[in-house]
């Protein structure tokens, strides 16, 4: 324990000794939460800025997509099965939680296989699973769809809102308004995708990428590796999280995603339409694609008035700079998704960051 602390302090010293200003983006929501909880931001030299990226699946779901899911849930012929974090996300007029209180059949499940099991137990009811997440959750949902086909379950389908991380990073690096000098890359997503997508990114934009784990020591090591690259003008893909992540990723999981899904252009909150960044269900599994089974109209994007989640998700502003933060918008009464999700940047900032009088109020 003691030596852990000494090691962490040495890492902090090493980071401080690289006297170079830099803006680093942590892509993953789990990193956002871990950084806020450990207080790392406060201990870094003032020149190093950590900003949150588009790595919380709930947060990056566009307003139009949320409204469409709410529209779907109001169809009395179906039961919508969802992960719990989606329940409170505000659409432009309602949320799934409100829909449920008004009589919609919406149930929270812990895994897509539980959803499939529910479909098997209720063969006369259409069961629609709301598939959301990045490359980490996509393989398990692909596996569930394959299982549904193998078992011949005809009342189960998936409404896919899946997204992939590398196209979003591409979009961030291409946006001249976003200044990022290096990426703290998501450990769990990289466990699936490996390092190749980052190599591709680096070849185009020449910014260092370090795949990082989630405890304090991991994050400090990751920052240290990034700062060393920045100081020496390098840009390479490195893995800090070696105990889990291999350069080639997990080919089985990659295979499952490729078998069931195909890349399509989708809308991200904060980034707009990003080509090839969504995962749609392939023609060969069309029977399990809820978007083909149930007609839901296209709903115009109606941004929430005053909500700056889009700018926060791309690191353009910090949560405390949003006019609604801490006054109108709080975890008990969230206006935007970044305050709802357990891994949202606003929720992390609200819960853990000590307000500085005059600059930030809470």
């Amino acid at each position, binding site marked *: 324990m003691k030596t852990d602390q000494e090691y962490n302090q040495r890492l902090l010293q090493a980071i401080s000794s690289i006297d170079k200003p830099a803006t680093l983006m942590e892509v993953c929501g789990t990193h956002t939460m871990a950084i806020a909880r450990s207080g790392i931001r406060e201990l870094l030299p003032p020149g190093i800025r950590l900003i949150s990226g588009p790595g919380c699946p709930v947060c990056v779901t566009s307003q139009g997509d949320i409204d469409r899911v709410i529209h779907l849930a109001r169809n009395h012929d179906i039961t919508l099965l969802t992960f719990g974090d989606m329940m409170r996300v505000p659409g432009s007029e309602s949320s799934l939680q409100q829909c449920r209180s008004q009589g919609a059949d919406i149930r929270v499940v812990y895994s897509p296989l539980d959803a499939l099991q529910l479909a098997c137990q209720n063969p006369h009811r259409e069961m629609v699973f709301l598939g959301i997440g990045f490359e980490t959750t996509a393989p398990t949902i692909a596996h569930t769809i394959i299982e549904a086909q193998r078992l011949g379950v005809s009342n189960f389908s998936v409404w896919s809102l899946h997204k992939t991380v590398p196209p979003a990073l591409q979009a961030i690096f291409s946006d001249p308004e976003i200044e990022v000098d290096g990426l703290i890359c998501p450990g769990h997503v990289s466990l699936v995708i490996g390092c190749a997508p980052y190599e591709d990114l680096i070849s185009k934009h020449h910014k260092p990428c370090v795949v990082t784990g989630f405890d304090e020591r991991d994050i400090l090591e990751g920052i240290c590796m990034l700062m060393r690259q920045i100081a020496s003008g390098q840009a390479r893909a490195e893995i800090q999280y070696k105990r889990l992540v291999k350069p080639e990723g997990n080919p089985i999981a990659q295979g499952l995603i490729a078998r069931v899904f195909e890349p399509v252009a989708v809308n991200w909150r904060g980034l707009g339409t990003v080509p090839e960044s969504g995962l749609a269900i392939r023609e060969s599994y069309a029977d399990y694609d809820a978007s083909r089974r149930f007609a839901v109209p296209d709903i115009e994007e109606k941004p929430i008035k005053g909500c700056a989640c889009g700018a926060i998700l791309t690191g353009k502003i910090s949560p405390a700079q949003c006019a609604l933060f801490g006054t109108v918008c709080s975890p008990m009464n969230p206006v935007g998704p970044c305050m709802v999700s357990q891994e949202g940047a606003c929720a992390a900032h*609200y819960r853990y960051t000590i307000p500085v009088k005059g600059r930030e109020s809470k």
Partner: protein
Amino acid sequence: MNQERVLLAHGSGGLMSQGLIERIFKQYWSNPHLDDMLDGAVLQLPVNRIAVSTDSFVITPLFFPGGDIGKLAVCGTVNDLVACGARPLYLSAAFIIEEGLSIRDLEQIVKSMAQTAAAAGVKLVTGDTKVVEKGSADQVFINTTGIGVIDSEVSLHPRCIKPGDQVIVTGQVGDHGLAILAQREGLAFSTPAESDCAALHHLSALVSKYPAQIKCMRDPTRGGLATVLNEIATQAGLGIVVEEQRIPVSAVVKGACDMLGMDPLYMANEGKMVIFASREGIDDLMRELLSNPLTQGATIIGEVVANHPGMVLLKTALGAKRILSTLEGEHVPRIC
């Protein structure tokens, strides 16, 4: 006998009710107050001031590693009385039983309450049983109400707390919450998670021994340590700073919480107390706490400060400070 179940008729108030009370309850709980079978218990109190506390217990599963709903129902109310600075003396117990509960389970719960009460020095003096139709309750719900007496010099209240007072937690946190979660969700760990469910009646003697020094106590049940610290900070109108590294958490709770995206500081405890005490004479108090097996993990985790009133700050392992907030809504495992 093993197959025998509680029927609606057991709650009719007639012969079957009497039979159930005679056979199951009186067998284990017999004492002069209860045996009188009056409509209520008539008690002699040696006092001064009394504390009264009531709590209802609804828990799935009924039996879990480290305890059961009966033990919990006694410990919970005993600990609430202790937190008021009282010496617990008497308990009432009311059962709402779902038709179909096995008599064997009921007997085990009743027996466990008797054993726990005896060990804690409290008497179960009056009770009630109701049976409801299947589906109207989940197996069995128990309410206990307790009465305790408070020594004349003792006064525990958040308003007694002053800047500089020390914050003690009497052992590792999160054990009960994890044990229940593990049992409910079918999670298995290499070291099984066990509830810390225990009656801390020995603390009332300590409060009487150190009346000036102990300022306030609260048991960190639902909402965990973090929630209790926030409640007290708000009620006292003072700030609290605790050190993450001093807060005792077992390796199994820490590991499981990391995996599930949960925080031990928000997990329920059923055999722990948070004590606010003056710095003066703290060594004697700590020595006494450490000498009892139920509080042998007692640790000073932080102190009360005058600045940031109503706010609890946590000094992280890295040495940074952050807010330790109150739980908003449910503390649930992370999905992805």
